[in-house]
């Protein structure tokens, strides 16, 4: 059981800055995120794209912003639990117990949901029959590539994951790469490589095709693909891989009894608490009149939610407002007091 004052759900910029604000006022926290690294949408959707509206930072990338925020919370030694999704929530007297997808348990005084637009999950094929093969002969990510050796693999997608795996697996497997158009979103060098391999007969590239159907009982025997003009092709395949990027889903949070409106959680604007006492929501996932989905708004929301958490973590103490410039206590917590 991990005991801490606050559990932050989501390691995007809003969650990270909230950890800073908690640290400044002397509360401890830990952070859970479903991705394998901190940064949230900044890292997953636009690590290299510039952001121009962070106050006092004329221009930075999503990755730079994330790194700076991580640097800023370093003094507080915040513990991260990555690749984990929160699942179950239980009220135990005046504390909350939370369980994650890998059965980690937390005992906290309050919870800050900074979950963006939900946790990132792989986007799946539209076909119903895909479900029964998923995890056996159909995958959306690769954990053990050795199972593909000397087999026939059909890869769908046109981004970097699809191209990189097509190139790599073509060394040891028979690879079909299927994409819905002639253009690719992956790196140009990978596109060239795939075309070369196709010309050399080391890989079969099918463009303007999409998945039509799958056949097989326990495992996939064959896949049918459909051209834009309606023509169909069927070929034998042992495995099907789909790389269509990630989608964001609210997941188990939906079942916690929170007031949800259009996939966002309603909060008050005094301290960003939800309809459930002790549970706060900040950043893109919260909604209130006038809400702007800007990173700077998330920072503001995190600062107020952190102060809202104080009375749950330290019910017998009073929180005094202080500036980091002059507060001895804050500077001690930051480790900068001379």
């Amino acid at each position, binding site marked *: 059981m991990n005991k801490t004052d606050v559990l932050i759900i989501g390691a995007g910029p809003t969650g990270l800055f909230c950890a800073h604000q908690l640290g400044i006022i002397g509360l401890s926290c830990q952070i859970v995120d479903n991705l394998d690294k901190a940064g949230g949408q900044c890292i997953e959707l*636009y690590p290299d794209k510039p952001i121009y509206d962070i106050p006092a930072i004329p221009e930075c990338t999503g990755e730079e912003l994330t790194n700076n925020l991580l640097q800023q919370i370093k003094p507080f030694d915040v513990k991260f639990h990555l690749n984990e999704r929160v699942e179950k929530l239980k009220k135990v007297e005046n504390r909350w117990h939370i369980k994650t997808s890998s059965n980690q348990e937390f005992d906290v005084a309050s919870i800050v949901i900074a979950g963006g*637009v*939900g946790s990132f999950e792989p986007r799946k094929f*539209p076909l119903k029959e895909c479900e029964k093969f998923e995890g056996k002969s159909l995958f959306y990510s690769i954990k053990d590539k050795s199972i593909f050796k000397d087999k026939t693999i059909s890869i769908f997608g*046109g981004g970097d994951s699809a191209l990189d795996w097509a190139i790599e697996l073509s060394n040891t497997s028979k690879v079909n790469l299927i994409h819905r*158009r002639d253009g690719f979103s992956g790196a140009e060098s990978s596109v060239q490589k795939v075309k070369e391999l196709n010309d050399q007969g080391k890989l079969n590239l099918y463009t303007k095709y999409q998945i039509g159907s799958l056949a097989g009982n326990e495992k996939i025997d064959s896949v049918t693909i459909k051209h*834009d003009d309606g023509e169909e092709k069927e070929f034998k395949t042992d495995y099907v891989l789909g790389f*269509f990027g990630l989608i*964001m889903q609210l997941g188990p949070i939906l079942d916690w009894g929170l007031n949800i409106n259009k*996939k966002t959680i309603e909060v008050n604007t005094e301290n960003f608490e939800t309809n459930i006492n002790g549970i706060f929501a900040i950043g893109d996932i919260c909604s209130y009149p006038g809400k702007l989905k800007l990173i700077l708004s998330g920072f503001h929301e995190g600062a107020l939610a952190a102060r809202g958490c104080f009375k749950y973590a330290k019910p017998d103490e009073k929180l005094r407002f202080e500036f980091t410039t002059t507060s001895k206590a804050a500077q001690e917590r930051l480790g900068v007091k001379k």
Partner: protein
Amino acid sequence: MAKVTYNTHDSKTHTIDIQNGLSVMEGAVQNDIPGIDADCGGGMACATCHVYVNEEWLDKLPTKEDGEEDMLDMAFEPKQNSRLSCQLIISDELDGLVVNIPSKQA
């Protein structure tokens, strides 16, 4: 101002007036038309405002930027007449536009 018609997957039709400068996505979200999620809020970063545009309108729409076709790779059942509705900015020329909302966004 343009009148835009949204056909939802359950065969319902919604026709609304949208001010110039707003997007077809914003028109749907502001008017509670179901089936357009717009998770990223119009940043061309998610493909959950995907629509099919009626053929006769295809060449009248603003052309696709590079990123839009890349995002459409991620959409649910993309077709040749697929567009991201956040990229369709309303002008008088789009008066009468008809879009069809797919059965799912993800």
